[in-house]
């Protein structure tokens, strides 16, 4: 039971549209507490909305993008939003803003934008790949 395993977490459900980001965060915390390693968090499809820097929920409500950012930074875990999913849905970093001549960028730190190759890499290198989908 005390073996250290490596995990890739894939989140495909958006905050507010699903519980996926909050369930994934609780799982991630428990995995770290259990002595495991998180190789990478990969946002896909609707899950990319978790990486928005512009969410401003009421102050007495949970702020999942903020909670995720803090967790990722504190534990130095790489997190990637799939570029194709993100561009369609309006999640861009400064590089994509310039490339597509968009009026702003809204990718929250420390999320990065990259391709599906990062997911393939996770399926090859991590001991476990966990998926957190929407429930609708």
């Amino acid at each position, binding site marked *: 039971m005390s073996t250290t395993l490596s995990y890739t977490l894939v989140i495909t459900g958006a905050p507010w*549209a699903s*519980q996926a980001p909050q369930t994934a965060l609780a799982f991630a915390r428990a995995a770290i507490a259990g002595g495991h390693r998180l190789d990478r968090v990969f946002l896909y499809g609707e899950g990319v909305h978790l990486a928005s820097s512009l969410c401003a929920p009421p102050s007495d409500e949970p702020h*999942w993008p903020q909670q995720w950012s803090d967790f990722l930074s504190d534990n130095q875990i790489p997190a990637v939003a799939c570029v194709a999913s993100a561009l369609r849905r309006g999640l861009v970093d400064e590089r994509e803003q310039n490339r597509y001549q968009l009026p702003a960028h809204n990718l929250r730190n420390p999320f990065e934008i990259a391709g599906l190759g990062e997911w393939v890499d996770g399926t090859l290198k991590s001991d476990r790949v966990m998926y957190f989908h929407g429930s609708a």
Partner: protein
Amino acid sequence: MTTLIVIDQAPYGSWAGREALDMVFSLAAFDQPAALLFTGVGVNWLRTAQSAKGVGQKTVEKNLSAAPLFGVEKIFAEQEACERFMPDTSSRLAGIDLVASVKNLMTQYDHVVFAG
């Protein structure tokens, strides 16, 4: 004009149900006659002893209890779904009107609206 807001989605899995509540409260705030109907798995909104802290959310039970105070005229629930998910009546919130026929209830309102 009367409006029936219908909630047929499970609680806590998404924000859709809360946003339906906001709609009914908004109608009531503008003095428009409005009622709520819970159907299917949506009736699980009406269970007692909810405690959502562990999933990082606020418990919706309180919002529902406040509905009459804010001018929401009625809270209805589909009887068949209540019997399916909450056969023990003590697990259901008080002040709910069970309806045997969703079809008949809907015909009594000018607008029937889902939130998503």
